[in-house]
């Protein structure tokens, strides 16, 4: 039996479910207000289901729609090593790793505000994830923190989020 690739299947499935929720929700609005949502959501749902099924069972069928004006019939020189993304020297931190850093930074901002969270995040990320020396870590952190503080607090007098632990009130969600 053919092995189904979980990632694409799950992501496309998520999109289909989201669209389905919007289709169902549309029916609760008056006919005029739901017209465009339904005109868009139903074809989107159908194409989404087509992608989901063909990705799972008939990948060739989906591949036939891989058209692009970028198809140049192999006339472009095939040079090795042309990549727009970093790839050499050093390992990535993985999806879970970056998710923890990103969500962790957001939670920290929520709790203690931007100024403290940013300082902690920069120091921790540069030292732990980027494995940068102490001096460089401190210099980068101070410069970036100073930039944020200078632009938002001093220059724009904006008042960054102070964190719920310091009495900041969050707007309703």
């Amino acid at each position: 039996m053919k092995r189904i690739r979980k990632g694409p299947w799950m992501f496309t499935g998520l999109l289909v479910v989201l669209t389905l929720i919007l289709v169902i929700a549309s029916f609760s609005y008056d006919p005029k207000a739901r017209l465009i949502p339904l005109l868009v959501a139903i074809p989107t749902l159908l194409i989404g289901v087509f992608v989901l099924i063909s990705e799972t069972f008939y990948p060739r069928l989906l591949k036939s729609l891989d058209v692009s004006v970028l198809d140049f019939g192999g006339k472009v020189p095939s040079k090795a090593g042309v990549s727009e993304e970093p790839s050499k020297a050093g390992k990535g931190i993985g999806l879970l790793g970056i998710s923890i850093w990103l969500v962790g930074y957001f939670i920290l901002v929520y709790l203690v505000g931007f100024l403290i969270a940013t300082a902690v995040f920069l120091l921790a990320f540069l030292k732990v994830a980027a494995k940068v020396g102490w001096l460089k870590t401190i210099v980068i952190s101070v410069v970036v923190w100073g930039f944020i503080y200078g632009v938002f607090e001093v220059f724009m007098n904006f008042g960054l989020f102070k964190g719920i632990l310091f009495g900041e009130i969050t707007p309703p969600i």
Partner: protein
Amino acid sequence: MTEAFVEAFGFLTRVDVIALLVLGHIIGLVFGALPGLSGVIALSVMIPFSYGMEPIPAMFFFTGMMGSIVFGGSISAILINTPGTAVNAATCFDGFPMTRRGEGNKALGISATASGLGAIFGLLVLFAVMPIMRQVVLLFGPPEFFMLVLFGLVTVAFAARGNMAKGLVAAGLGVLISLIGYSGVFGILRFNFGSEYLWDGFKLVPFFIGIFAISELITLAIKGGRVAEERLEARGSVVDGIKEVFRYPVTFFRSSAIGTLIGIIPGVGGVVANFLSYTTAIQTSKHPETFGTGDPEGVIAAESANNAKDGGALIPTVAFGIPGSAEMAVLLGAFILHGLTPGPMLIRDNMEIVWALLLGLLISNILASSVGLLAANQLVKLTFINVHQIIPIVMVLCLVGAFAVRGNIWDVMLAVVAGFFGYGMKKFGFPVVCLVIGYILGHLAEVAFHQSLMIAYGSYTIFFTHPIALTLFILVFVVLLLPFVMSRLAKRRSEK
């Protein structure tokens, strides 16, 4: 028109505006030279920083960035064989072999001259069509505009790199996302699911920061490493490179024309312009075998096209509010943030903004071809930095920027969620540009649709009795059928 020009030009006599343009220019060069950090990321991250600026200085700031990003990207393409942005990919083919041959400076000279002149070509076309544009825009009523939006969405799904079915799903989702929140047309809330935050819908700036910048940072973090291990020293004469462009006027003009034309098509963007112009140069050359081995013509073709596309992409952006590329979609976001309404009204009511965009791009491109060229060897050093040192800095800018637009902490959460969503889309082949253009156009399409029905007393025939609307409707079907026609043709070709 003259008054508007004078108003926009008048801003250039202010020191703070010049400083903003130069600052934008430097940011663009840095983001352009750093592979992985594209122009669209630079624009998304910097939008919140423009909050509080007057609209025209803000436009100079943005065009300062836009004008230098592509040349910045060509520096790393030529010196380390890694395009700084996707639109510089074809530049590597001949740029890097020239560097290997000890002609790095010559290649940079070619790139700077072709980039600058290509951009000027595109802007001249924009300048030339501006009077016609005003007339054409007047021909577009609500039914024509609705069909134009539909055509734009289908074209984006077809032209964006990847799968057309996935492109259509992404565009559809983008439209649906744009409908979230309070509808001014019907006076009701839609798709907010009890959330007070969603009353205003998905706010544009945090959504763009997430979908473009944070998603790219996630990708970079997962890949890790640094861009360049070693680079070859740029040698040779820059002046020789400048002269070289004038030795190939046909290549230059043809490539610039291709770039401008491709720019006009919504969502197609610089990558296609870059490659299409390059392959056309090969096909029409008397010595095609030299391409890929360091032929100056290859650099001219690639760089003049990807810079000329900006002038072309501005045409649908300012005339109809239909973004010609992802960068233009973000620029439209900046319009909205600064209280400007994208679409036909912009040309009628805010012509000074169009002039500011034109002037800003012109100056920034000239700066890129002169100052940028001098800084090329220093800029390329940025690519030696480990990406893990860049990620936290840009991440901080993203989250602070998402908050800064209106001081709502949940906007930061939206940016984070959109970041993961954008990452998923890229990873599984759903073109983000389709989602974004759908998001920009969705609400406009709905308004145009209902206005059309009101004009026609509820009759849908209005979309088929207006000649322009009908033509656009037919074109929508033609574009939808193109993948099948193209795959048939490809099959036949392979059979032969």
